[in-house]
């Protein structure tokens, strides 16, 4: 059994970490539970703070660049190099095998079993911080969100949620970088789910023992508000 000091060291470095030792301590320690929840909420705020509006960032930089001949020369150099540089070596990318979306999603979920450990609902601020960079939010009422973090997936940082719905716990990956023409089924390694085309990219919903994965996926899909 870990003590308060150890728990706070670990949670202070990784607020969304979860394992049996941590959960066992949190069950009996209200102060540490509060500390963990505060840190998770703060991380939501940190995520929102770091997600600076790029349009504003670039507009500001562009106004500065207009005064900089060095920057203009660099832009010209980049344009020229784009033509030449792209012709070299790009075949490698095409030749590289690319896993299917379904396989990537299953691999992601299978490799992060700790995300399912917590049953404590996250604060709305923590959840908002994870989804805000995608311009999305989750409408309340669908279920308790017990895990939310931004993970590297397919070379991109994507929101990864665990939502505990009446129908069962599901993992949701918001894949704004992956456009999809039609829904995909997932049935692999004991997981079942769907990947649905979304207003921006796609959204994957997977769980275990889902009686009606289509209905669950549709419910999650409709709970996502893309107009943030």
């Amino acid at each position, binding site marked *: 059994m870990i003590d308060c000091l150890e728990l706070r060291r*670990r949670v*202070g470095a990784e607020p969304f970490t979860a394992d049996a030792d941590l959960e066992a301590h949190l069950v009996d320690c209200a102060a540490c539970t509060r500390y963990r929840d505060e840190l998770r909420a703060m*991380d939501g705020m940190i995520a929102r703070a770091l997600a600076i509006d790029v349009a504003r960032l670039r507009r500001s930089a562009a106004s500065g660049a207009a005064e900089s001949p060095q920057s203009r020369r660099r832009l010209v150099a980049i344009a020229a190099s784009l033509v030449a540089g792209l012709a070299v070596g790009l075949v490698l990318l095409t030749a590289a095998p690319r896993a299917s979306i379904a396989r990537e999603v299953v691999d992601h979920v299978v490799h992060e079993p700790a995300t399912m450990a917590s049953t404590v609902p996250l604060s709305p601020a923590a959840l908002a911080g994870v989804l805000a960079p995608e311009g999305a939010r989750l409408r309340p009422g669908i279920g308790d969100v017990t895990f939310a973090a931004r993970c590297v997936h397919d070379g991109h*940082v994507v929101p990864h949620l665990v939502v505990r719905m009446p129908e069962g716990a599901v993992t949701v990956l918001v894949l704004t970088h992956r456009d999809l023409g039609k829904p995909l089924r997932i049935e692999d390694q004991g997981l079942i789910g769907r990947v649905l085309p979304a207003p921006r990219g796609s959204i994957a919903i997977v769980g275990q023992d889902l009686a009606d994965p289509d209905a669950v996926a549709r419910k999650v899909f409709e709970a996502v508000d893309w107009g943030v």
Partner: protein
Amino acid sequence: MNRDDTGTDARRRFGSLCESLRPDLLRFAFWLGRDRQLAEDVVQEAMLRAWKSLDSLTDQGKAKSWLLTIVRREFARSFERKRLEVTDLDALVAAEANVLAAEDDDGLAEMREALFRLEDEYREPLVLQVLMGYTTQEIADAMGMQQGAVLTRLFRARARLRRELGLAGESAP
């Protein structure tokens, strides 16, 4: 598929990849250097270097970490070239006030300023973890540190932010 089709498709995919990663790379560079012009220059230069050394990227799944490494190196070069030194944090905050502002959310602007004032050694791993989604081991690999040292820095970064924002009601270890 003939060679031209393959090249066109690859170019489109790589262009799309860069386009999708560029916002996060720009944000990362901004938080690294706390200067929007420097961030734009560093990311542009990094993209140029990326295109030139594209053959070193053999796994597209690692494109993000590959580009991030190039941005970090380019940032280090810029710092070396310009011998940038931060001597006046207040002036730095004032210079980027437009970017740090958050309409209708004072708490967000306050957090941005607190992050801005955080020492480099604490700010960078925190940005890698929260913004870029890196694990502590990936941060350790990127920064050439032991994982334990990364965990310590992340803990201290959050402790400082809590203190700075008046959230540290209890004593933390």
